[in-house]
């Protein structure tokens, strides 16, 4: 059954269709979530939010966009919501506590993140890449993650973001330019 048809069945309360759609999209949704949030716990929670939203909103899916585009759109929105929430937590962390009560570890600090799918020989570079991605503006982050990590085409990214293909191209160029700048800043202190 096509994802579009599965969504119609989900809207009619078909639990089996929901399980099929979950199996079909779980890796795409989780991979996108973990690339944004760079934390397994947050990615799992965001993924749950995405599928709960899919279930509740399946009835409002009109088929103007492909099911995949629609699901990616929900995923991106949920991830950005969670990122903003995390950033707010970071901003107000001085009002609560900077350190964990039991372990004494610094809370709200972005930890070292290794993408589980990265090739072993590229693992070190991918850690740097994700560290740099965190510094990008939201729309550039989205364009870069959907293109480089999820492997979507520019047309698909344009549909997810609701912009033209030219705009996506420009976003990707700016994202790469900014990543180069950020990465060269990472290297500067080491070069002395």
């Amino acid at each position, binding site marked *: 059954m096509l994802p579009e048809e599965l969504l119609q069945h989900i809207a009619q309360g078909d639990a089996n269709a929901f399980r099929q759609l*979950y199996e079909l999209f779980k890796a795409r949704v*989780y991979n996108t979530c973990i690339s944004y949030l760079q934390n397994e716990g947050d990615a*799992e929670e965001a993924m*749950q939010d995405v*599928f709960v939203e899919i279930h509740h909103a399946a009835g409002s899916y009109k088929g103007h966009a492909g099911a995949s585009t629609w699901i990616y759109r929900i995923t991106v929105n949920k991830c950005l919501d969670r990122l903003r929430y995390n950033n707010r937590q970071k901003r107000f962390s001085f009002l609560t506590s900077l350190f964990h009560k039991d372990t004494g570890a610094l809370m709200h600090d972005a930890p070292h993140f290794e993408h589980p799918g990265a090739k072993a020989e590229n693992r070190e*570079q991918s850690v740097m890449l994700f560290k740099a991605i965190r510094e990008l503006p939201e729309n550039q982050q989205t364009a870069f993650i959907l293109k*480089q990590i999820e492997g979507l085409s520019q047309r698909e990214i344009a549909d997810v973001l609701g912009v033209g293909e030219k705009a996506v191209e420009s976003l990707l160029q700016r994202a790469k330019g900014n*990543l180069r700048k950020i990465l060269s800043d990472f290297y500067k202190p080491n070069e002395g």
Partner: protein
Amino acid sequence: MKPQTLNGQTDDILQSMDGAARAIPREGLLPLIEQRIALPFTKGKTISLGTLSAAAASVALLVCMNMAMLWKQNTPVPSKGGDPATQVVEYYGIMNNGEMLGI
């Protein structure tokens, strides 16, 4: 030579996710999602920023109005004479000692 090395390094980093596999979620998430779906949908529980601002402004206005009224009530009655006894007599409208003693 240095900038080329740096460019090479950044290119390697930018391409480090080429050919990477997708991250797979752990087993057991679907039952959690199904549990959440089974719960009643609680959309619309949040209060918009506009509503919150309007409520805060109303409270602030009420507090200001109350403060202004209290301040008005506590303003001392201006007295013509400097003598405290005269001020008391003026305030209570007492005309003579007999009246004050209730005679």
